């Protein structure tokens, strides 16, 4: 049984090619390859070497079109017992190959060759080709005449030509030898025997039988030689004779042989032309061949030798001839029959050859599963032989079956053509690809095949193949393998790895399963923002603006939401999270795992990790981009079980998708208790050149700033450029909640520091003002029972964010200006962590009115002016303190109003508060001094912890100087003349005006506080004040129409001399009893119109009794005290002089009152009187008069 048999094999001259002397296998193969190219030599080309010694027996040799065919047997082969039966099995020529440089002595080469060729007794021609002889060898005369042929060193083409010539020479020699042989055979005498013929001593009957058969056999053999000589017509003639003769002698075996030869002759004659008729003929004849081989079976020697192998060989030859898709059923039938027959073959190697041939033919037919099946049979036969080479063969054969069983190694698939490709089609994984990748339904078969590969690889001593098989087995079928089996595979992996050199790579990954978990986003410190070169303020569009996540109108933006895009920066470390799973029952020790980067522009850092049995882990893999461009990360490189493998994310994704669809066995991550699968798309990652990198640092710690409500504090933020590119643009903006708590940001400082060189630092000041805690916040604090120390963490998101957009230069220096997009800018987000503590809390505000009687004195003529709020005549700084609390002892403070604020200190520190009133809106020149005075002079109120304190704010100051048009008057005047429509409009106006005035008033009041050395702030009590004032705003703001004042007259009479006046001033306006005291009552009109009044003056004693009238009058008077009619011109004062004579020393109170005649509407409104004819009274403040008894 021979491999590679075909019908044409009968016409091939078998030539042994053997290495002579020391030829390295590589060189031998090289030289042999040159030789093998000349397997067909045309007859026309050898005619020059051919000499016809006698009449050629090949009468019909086609010298023009025919050829001789060689079959080179490398290394030679032992002689076959069937040589006589089929001459093509004989080694008819021997060619030695020698490499001269390694065999200096040509003589010995010649000897060796002669010795070697002797073993081929059937050989007719021997030649030894010696390549590359040195000069000395070329000149060596001793080998002349031997079979040694030297091929002088030359280029390849020349050598091949030389070789061709030599082969033609051999062909010619063989042809001549064939002629000789045929002539000799025809003359008779040769005995043809096969192992089938009885080996025992021939009985006489058998001798006669053999003699009869000899002629037929001789004709067949001559036919064989004719075929070898390339003369099919001659061959056919001889075969025909032989067929006749053998049929007659019932020599079925030789009959079949002759028939085979005749088919070969037929095909040779047609020279490769095939047609259906020929095919039918061949089929018919070969069926007869098969039949006759079967017939020749002799039961006697069936144990020893059987023609079965010839029958099978003939079947295979026919199958090979017919092997076409259209004739598949015929071929399958033939091959099935062959397979059936193979079971009864005695020789194991025959069986092997049959199975190999069957597998090959099935493969040729496209029946890959059948081919794989028979290949596996071959492998099993190899595995039955217990030697290393058989194991290697088994391994190789099994490796060929892996494709059909879909367990092929990734190495055999070739470089994965789409592994590096990102999910261009949106991550769609096709059903078929999953099935083809993880078709586990034939898992039994797949596991058996892999196990056999593992077994054969171990036996063959190929640790890498063993490792790969074990890895595939473990990775794909771990759910079907018992823990003991898994441990066995683990052992196989480790053992194989021990035999492998360090750092061996294998294309098949083992464990663990690796899938992409996520890409951590840039920290807010390193955010990258695309820069639009067309816009100066490229940062403006960067942050999402508006309340909507999706705006349907922004369709112009290439905003592909499901396609993630990442930007990495050269030189800045990046991180990728991957999840590892070990679903097996042993611990997996991953010596190192790092990102596999096919684009080559990322330096990945390896990490080592250990996975306990049945566990999964999420780990962070990092790397540093080195070059700009796209980065593709299809998977990870894993060094585990002693071998380096590449694990692709895509495969695991496919596996997991398959698991969800029930196509594959199990999801390794689910079985390890990992989180549910989420399809993480591999984003397209771009690496951009180095960018500047600002790093912020808040002076005094990056923690949150603790501020009491309303506290104002400066925070210093230092910004350093940690990148390698200068910052050339920077823009500061605010975002987040409570933005108004940032009072100022010194963006000028930053701008002036640009460009900020790498390593440079700039410090900017940010002024913060703590916001008020909402009601719920403070309630919550109170309910927690920690009113003193309500230290609370700043709630997330309640603090404002400082956004700094910055960017490097538009183009890199040294590079020509490119049209491509400029390097992106970045955004630094500095959260201003403000933790607001509850500070002074406002409890309530009240409006108080006080009546502080003034004393009558004559010293100061400025009272009236003061009352008007006009500070033109500021008489010294000693009055500043008094001004706030405007109690002038010489002046009545009738209806003084005070705003009382009750403040509570729930904290554990001491607060000091001070009230200031900014008199900004008073007359201009005085603003400055007034403010200064307010600041200097404000008295401080200390509020201890857990105490409540009250702060008073006098409101007298805010009286308007004139009761008049701008506020009330105009509107009321108009009211009289114009219609009611106008009226309502005016009312609105009034309201607006009033509100404005109130606001103005409120804004002037500031309650500042200070705590400790560096906490200071301002209470936000505007609303409270407004609420408190709302009711009585008119009283606070508007002056009375008339104001009254008393004073001692300077020169009322001659008696009261200058001396006393001075004294009285000095002694505190003391008035002495029993003296006539001249006094004046001053009436001032605060309106813009003259007022006619009826003034009356009263004096009361301590008991409140009128002491000027009645029986017990204790005061005598001179002048008019009641019913004084006068007209007070607008905005002017009128004096009315009178004198009093006190009889008894003591305290008296002077009161002035006036009834206004013909009050206009302004006055009426002010007095809140509705009736037109109702008289309007005005009372002045009470004035105290102290009358002393003696001087």
């Amino acid at each position: 049984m021979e491999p590679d048999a075909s019908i044409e094999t009968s016409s091939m001259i078998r030539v042994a090619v053997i290495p002579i002397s020391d030829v390295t296998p590589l060189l031998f193969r090289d030289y042999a390859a040159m030789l093998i190219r000349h397997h067909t030599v045309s007859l026309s080309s050898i005619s020059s070497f051919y000499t016809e010694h006698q009449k050629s027996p090949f009468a019909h040799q086609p010298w023009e079109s025919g050829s001789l065919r060689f079959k080179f047997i490398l290394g030679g082969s032992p002689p076959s017992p069937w040589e006589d039966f089929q001459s093509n099995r004989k080694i008819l020529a021997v060619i030695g190959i020698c490499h001269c440089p390694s065999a200096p002595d040509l003589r010995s080469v010649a000897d060796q060759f002669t010795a070697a060729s002797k073993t081929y007794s059937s050989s007719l021609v021997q030649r030894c080709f010696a390549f590359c002889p040195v000069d000395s060898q070329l000149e060596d005369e001793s080998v002349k005449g031997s079979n040694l042929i030297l091929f002088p060193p030359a280029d390849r083409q020349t050598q091949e030509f030389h070789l061709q010539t030599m082969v033609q020479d051999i062909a010619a020699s063989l042809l001549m030898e064939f002629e000789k042989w045929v002539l000799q055979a025809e003359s008779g005498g040769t005995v043809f025997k096969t192992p089938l013929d009885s080996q025992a001593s021939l009985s006489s009957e058998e001798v006669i039988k053999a003699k009869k058969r000899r002629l037929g056999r001789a004709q067949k053999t001559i036919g064989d030689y004719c075929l070898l000589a390339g003369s099919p017509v001659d061959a056919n003639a001889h075969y025909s004779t032989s067929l006749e003769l053998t049929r007659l002698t019932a020599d079925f075996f030789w009959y079949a042989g002759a028939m085979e030869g005749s088919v070969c002759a037929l095909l040779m004659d047609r020279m490769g032309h095939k047609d259906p008729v020929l095919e039918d003929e061949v089929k018919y004849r070969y069926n007869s061949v098969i039949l006759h081989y079967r017939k020749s079976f002799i039961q006697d020697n069936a144990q020893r030798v059987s023609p079965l192998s010839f029958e099978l060989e003939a079947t295979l030859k026919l199958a090979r001839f017919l092997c076409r898709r259209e004739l598949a059923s015929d071929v399958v039938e033939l091959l099935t029959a062959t397979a059936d027959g193979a079971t009864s073959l005695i020789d194991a190697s025959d069986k092997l050859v049959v199975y190999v041939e069957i597998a090959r033919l099935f493969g040729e037919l496209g029946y890959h599963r059948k081919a794989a099946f028979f290949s596996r049979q071959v492998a099993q036969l190899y595995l039955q032989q217990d030697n290393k080479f058989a194991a290697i063969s088994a391994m190789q054969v099994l490796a060929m079956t892996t494709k059909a069983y879909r367990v092929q190694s990734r190495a055999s698939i070739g470089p994965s053509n789409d592994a590096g490709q990102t999910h261009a089609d949106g991550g769609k994984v096709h059903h078929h690809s999953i099935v083809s990748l993880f078709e586990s339904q034939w898992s039994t078969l797949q596991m058996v095949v892999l196990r056999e590969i593992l077994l054969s690889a171990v036996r063959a001593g190929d640790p890498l193949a063993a490792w790969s098989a074990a890895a595939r087995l473990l990775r794909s079928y771990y759910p079907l393998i018992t823990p003991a089996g898994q441990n066995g595979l683990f052992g196989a992996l480790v053992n194989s790895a021990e035999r492998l050199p360090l750092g061996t790579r294998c294309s098949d990954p083992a464990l663990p399963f690796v899938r992409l978990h996520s890409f951590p986003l840039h920290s807010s410190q390193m955010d990258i923002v695309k820069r639009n070169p067309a816009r100066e303020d490229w940062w403006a569009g960067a942050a999402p603006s508006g309340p909507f996540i999706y705006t349907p109108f922004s369709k112009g933006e290439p905003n592909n939401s499901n396609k993630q895009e990442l930007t990495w920066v050269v030189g800045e470390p990046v991180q990728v999270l991957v999840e590892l799973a070990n679903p097996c029952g042993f611990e997996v020790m991953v010596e190192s795992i790092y990102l596999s980067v096919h684009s080559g522009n990322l330096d990945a850092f390896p990490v080592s990790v250990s996975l306990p049995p049945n566990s999964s882990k999420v780990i962070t893999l990092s790397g540093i981009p080195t070059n700009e461009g796209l980065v593709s990360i299809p998977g990870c490189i894993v060094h585990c079980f002693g071998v380096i493998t590449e694990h692709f994310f895509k495969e695991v994704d496919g596996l997991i998708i398959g698991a969800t669809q029930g196509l594959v066995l199990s999801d390794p991550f689910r079985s390890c208790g990992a989180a549910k699968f989420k399809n993480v798309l591999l984003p397209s990652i771009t690496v951009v050149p180095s960018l500047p990198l600002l790093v912020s640092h808040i002076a005094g710690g990056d923690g949150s700033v603790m501020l009491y409500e309303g506290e104002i504090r400066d925070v210093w933020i230092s910004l350093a450029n940690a990148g390698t590119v200068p910052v050339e643009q920077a823009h500061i903006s605010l975002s987040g909640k409570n933005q108004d708590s940032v009072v100022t940001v010194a963006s000028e400082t930053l701008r002036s520091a640009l460009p900020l060189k790498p390593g440079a630092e700039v410090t900017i000041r940010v002024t913060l003002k703590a916001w008020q805690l909402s009601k719920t916040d403070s309630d919550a604090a109170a309910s927690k029972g920690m009113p003193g120390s309500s230290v609370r963490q700043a709630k997330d998101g309640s603090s404002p964010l400082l956004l700094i957009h910055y960017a490097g230069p538009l183009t890199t220096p040294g590079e020509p200006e490119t049209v491509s997009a400029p390097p992106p800018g970045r955004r630094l987000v500095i959260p201003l962590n403000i933790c607001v503590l509850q500070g002074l809390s406002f409890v309530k505000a009240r409006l108080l009115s006080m009546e502080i009687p003034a004393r009558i004195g004559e010293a100061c003529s400025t009272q009236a002016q003061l009352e008007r709020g006009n500070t033109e005549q500021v008489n010294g700084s000693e009055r500043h303190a008094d001004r706030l609390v405007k109690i002038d002892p010489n002046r009545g403070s009738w209806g003084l109003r005070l705003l009382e604020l009750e403040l509570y200190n729930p904290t554990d520190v001491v607060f000091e508060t001070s009230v200031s009133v900014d008199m900004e809106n008073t007359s201009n020149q005085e603003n400055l001094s007034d403010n200064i005075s307010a600041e200097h002079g404000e008295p401080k109120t200390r509020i201890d912890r857990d105490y409540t304190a009250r702060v008073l704010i006098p409101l007298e100051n805010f009286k308007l100087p004139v009761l008049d048009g701008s506020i009330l008057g105009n509107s009321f005047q108009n009211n009289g003349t114009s219609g009611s429509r106008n009226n309502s409009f005016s009312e609105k106006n009034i309201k607006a005006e009033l509100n404005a005035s109130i606001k103005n008033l409120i804004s002037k009041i500031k309650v500042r506080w200070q705590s400790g050395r560096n906490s200071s702030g301002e209470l936000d009590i505007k609303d409270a004040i407004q609420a408190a004032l709302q009711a009585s705003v008119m009283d606070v703001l508007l002056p009375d129409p008339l104001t009254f004042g008393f004073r001692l007259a300077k020169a009322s009479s001659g008696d009261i001399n200058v001396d006393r006046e001075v004294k009285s001033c000095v002694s505190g306006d003391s008035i002495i009893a029993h003296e006539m005291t001249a006094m004046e009552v001053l009436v001032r009109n605060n309106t813009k119109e003259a007022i006619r009044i009826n003034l009356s003056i009263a004096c009361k004693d301590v008991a409140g009794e009128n002491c000027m009238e009645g029986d017990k009058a204790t005061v005598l008077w001179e002048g008019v005290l009641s019913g004084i009619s006068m007209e007070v011109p607008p905005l002017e004062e009128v004096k009315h002089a009178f004198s009093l004579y006190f009889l008894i020393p003591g305290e008296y109170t002077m009161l002035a009152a006036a009834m206004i005649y013909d009050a206009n509407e302004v006055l009426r409104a002010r007095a809140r009187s509705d009736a037109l004819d109702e008289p309007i009274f005005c009372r002045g403040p009470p004035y105290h008069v102290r009358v002393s008894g003696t001087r």
Partner: protein
Amino acid sequence: MASTACFMIVSKNDIPIYEAEVGTVPKKEDAAHQHQFILHAALDIVQDTAWTTSAMFLKAIDRFNDLVVSVYVTAGHILSFVMSDFIIHTRLMLLHDSRNEDGIKSFFQEVHELYIKASSVMFYNLI
């Protein structure tokens, strides 16, 4: 007499959906593997033979050693037609050593009936 029989239902994409050793020969693991290997290989021949005849029962289409593969091809899955390029036959395959053609045919017919009943349940998705 102990007989070997391995029954298998192969669905589209040549995925086996059912496999059972129904013979009376005592079970051996190696043999079971071998049976599956033979059936798997026979799919190549079924694939071609199914188109050459209108009969559903393909008789013994393949054999290895003493084991014969008989196949019964069901009519195409109508539903599958939409999803793939060609009509998929579900193949009922029996590997056996006895040559009782009629018995095998009636066995196949019975199984086919049951299979149709099972696959008609609309909630049941045979891969």
